[in-house]
């Protein structure tokens, strides 16, 4: 059984007055196996953020199912949802989302504190992680005192410290320069190498080229996917780039084909 299964997920937004309906996700189907490193690509407005929000249980699908370890997210009660997110999912955001009033150490501890973990246990988990992410010296600093790359590594540390089943990353390199981006992507690859499942949403080919599999979303559904197999990052980069060219070239007749599908 797959770790994460997405079945026929549909999302329709209704405008406030109810007259206009916008379909963000048409019919999304895919699954992620344990230990996989998956990147989801698509243009702005293709629905990738909507999809991530649904996977993160921050938003609910209009229809269809999302199963994590066989458990349907839609079936979790609102009250338990926060605890569920805390225990099973790790998040990395484009804008880091670190609290300025907390030191990096306390930011990393935040999900554990919310889960009621004891201080010794938190320290024990933090030590190896901080060393691996190379932020051990920065733990007592505050977010406004460190660079963007360092902030993002602290955020990754916060995502990993709960030992989540899957890390969901939303454009993690979006706010970083190329050097910091490369360093972060290398870290992601290392973590994945140790068995951590990662699902990343991005529109950077560079970022996606580190993944084991890339899904392309277009107009609210999975349009295409490519596997890395035994290829290097450079070959992967080339393939993604080609796939995107096709994706863009199809733009003009995309609506026609979608109509065809519907009929």
């Amino acid at each position: 059984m797959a770790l994460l299964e997405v079945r026929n997920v549909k999302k329709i937004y209704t405008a406030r007055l109810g007259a206009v309906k916008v379909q963000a996700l048409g019919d999304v189907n895919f699954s992620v196996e344990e230990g996989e490193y998956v990147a989801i690509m698509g243009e702005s407005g293709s629905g990738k953020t909507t999809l991530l929000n649904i996977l993160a249980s921050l938003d609910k699908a209009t229809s269809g199912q999302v199963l994590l370890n066989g458990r349907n997210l839609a079936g979790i009660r609102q009250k338990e949802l926060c605890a569920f997110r805390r225990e099973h999912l790790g998040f990395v955001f484009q804008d880091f989302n670190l609290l300025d009033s907390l030191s990096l150490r306390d930011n990393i501890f935040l999900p554990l504190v919310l889960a009621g973990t004891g201080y010794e246990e938190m320290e024990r988990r933090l030590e190896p992680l901080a060393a691996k992410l190379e932020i051990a010296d920065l733990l007592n600093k505050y977010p406004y005192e460190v660079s963007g790359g360092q902030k993002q590594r602290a955020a990754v540390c916060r995502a990993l410290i709960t030992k989540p089943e899957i890390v969901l990353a939303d454009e993690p390199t979006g706010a970083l320069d190329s050097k910091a981006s490369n360093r972060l992507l290398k870290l992601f690859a290392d973590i994945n190498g140790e068995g951590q499942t990662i699902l990343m949403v991005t529109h950077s080919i560079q970022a996606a080229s580190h993944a084991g599999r890339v899904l392309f979303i277009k107009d609210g559904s999975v349009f295409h996917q490519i596997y890395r197999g035994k290829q290097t990052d450079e070959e992967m980069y080339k393939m993604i780039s080609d796939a995107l060219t096709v994706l863009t070239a199809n733009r003009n007749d995309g609506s026609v084909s979608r109509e065809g599908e519907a009929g």
Partner: protein
Amino acid sequence: MKPTATGEQRAKLWKILPGLAWKGVGSNGTVYYPYFGAGIFSVFTYFVFSSILHNDIIRILPRSAYAWIMLQIGRGLLGIILLPFLFYANSFLIKRRKKEIGLYSILGLEKKHIGIMFLTETVITFGVVLAGGIISGIILSKFLFLLLLRMTGMPVDVEFVFYPAAFAETAVFFFWVYMVNLVYNWMQIGKSRPAELLSASKKGEREPRFLWLCAAAGVLVLGEGYKISMESRMDSSIFTNFFLAVFLVIVGTYLIFTSGSIAFLKLLKKRKGFYYRPANFITVSGMLSRMKKNAASLVNICIFSTMVIITLVCTSSLYLGMDGVLYFNYPFDMDAHFRESGFREEQSGTKLRELEEKYGLQVKENLNYRKISLGCGKTGNAFGVEFAERTRQEDNYRVNLLLEEDYNRMENRAASLGEEEVVIYSEGADFGYSEVIFSGKEFTVKEEAAELRIAPKAGKNSLSGEFFLIVRDEGVWNGLADRWMTENGIEDKEGFLDERTERVLRLDVEGDAAEKAAFIEEYGSWCSTQPGYAGFSNNLENRADSREMMGGLLFIGVLFGLIFLMCLLLIMYYKQISEGYEDKENFEVMQKVGMSGGEIRKTVHKQILLVFYLPLFGAVLHTAAGLFMVDKLFGAIYFYDTRLMVECAAGTVLLFAAVYGLSYWYTASVYYGIVNGKKE
């Protein structure tokens, strides 16, 4: 070609400015509406004061001089309080809108355009506030005026007129208030760059140094303030002491709240078992990150709370204790003084009976006694020559020599004193010795009387307390007077004694108020025609005078209590919403990381609870210390009912805590609404 704005475009830009101004007010409703509310209330009170001041009636009415002077002073104080307060409210608004202004200037509004936008906004605000305040003033000031008349005991059937001068003065005063605000706002945009306006600093505050030293200094300063208040005495230094104590308490509160709260929070943070719990974690770190600002607003809240409570305690005690004060000062409806040598007891009695018949009234109480009043300096249990030194003025007392015969009759007693025995009575603190020495002659105190009908006792009366020595007969009486005259070097002993030996008549009359007044009036004028006449006091009029003075105080007390309360509530409200906006982002992050709505609510309540009850606690402590001084100050107007004052204080504190709690509940829900709201 360079893209410069054409004339047409310029014209368009000018046209949209008023629209932007309206939008600025409308879209910042959460912060603007309370600002309007506070402004309207300020105009309202100022206008009411002005209207009453300008009514000729208040100057023509009998005995209205005190009320007029009180209102005049009150309006001056009002101006002193309102200007900085409205300035604070305005600077709060501008801080909140910096980002919006920054955006406008990046999108191409020049500084002068923004200046015009501010001008328009200020004109709108000024117009709304002035109109709102004056309209509500017109509706309510007649009511308030009647209230004032009732409180001061002035005749109520008068007409209340609005004078243009009241409108003009209110408009001018608030014109300057808003002008100051506008200039401040202009200066704000003048010196700032758009980029700065856009990115509000996210940095935490730097931690103050010498934390423990400051905390210790705070405790010392506050303690000194409390000490001054508790040890103060009713003398000429009480007013300087009063302001010194207030100053020390404010400084002490500031030091303690700043350093104390930070030291306390840091201590909490060090205790890992406590700190790393969901609700504590966010609360403590959030408060530490804005500790200085936090402490400053807590001090403001604490001081304003104290002001509200003390004002209300004074007002309510005065209102409830007024009759007691009037009775203490004027126990009888009238007092008549005659020289004993010329007094004709029979005629006086006949006249009274005649008047009783004429007015159909009853003389309820008729005290009639002889006394010799002499000034003495008191050292321990000895009365001697009065002290001339300023520093010992407070040891000078008036000693009244009474006769056993009169005492027994008035007090319904059967004291039979020996040659060297006296009964002593003190209006102020108990005398407390078993012997008394008067001008060198020693007497045994047979009894210290607990009360005397002609002179109500107030143990704390250190200002005007008199002593009464009741002696056996006229022989002892004259002997003592003689010793005193010798000691004081009086040459014409006979003439002096004749002048000082007085006959006092004190009467209470029962019946209809108007008839009673006429009765006393007529009796007074009859007395003045009698031989030996030395003075008459119509205490119905004296009581009315005092009532009017205190009524003026009460009226001002009530309005000022309300003003302080308004300031307090607005400061609380602004503090909560400004922090709400600051914390909004943090709570969004926490929700993403897995904090539930329930946990957020709990955190919010914990945070606000700490922040809100600390100042209340401080205010109650300050009030407790301040009551000692209020008690002494009340002595200046012969208010000696400490018990009543303490009861009023307890009632006021409870009531205030309830209002405070309501405001806590309300601001907490506003705060929660802000941090929990969807991202705009």
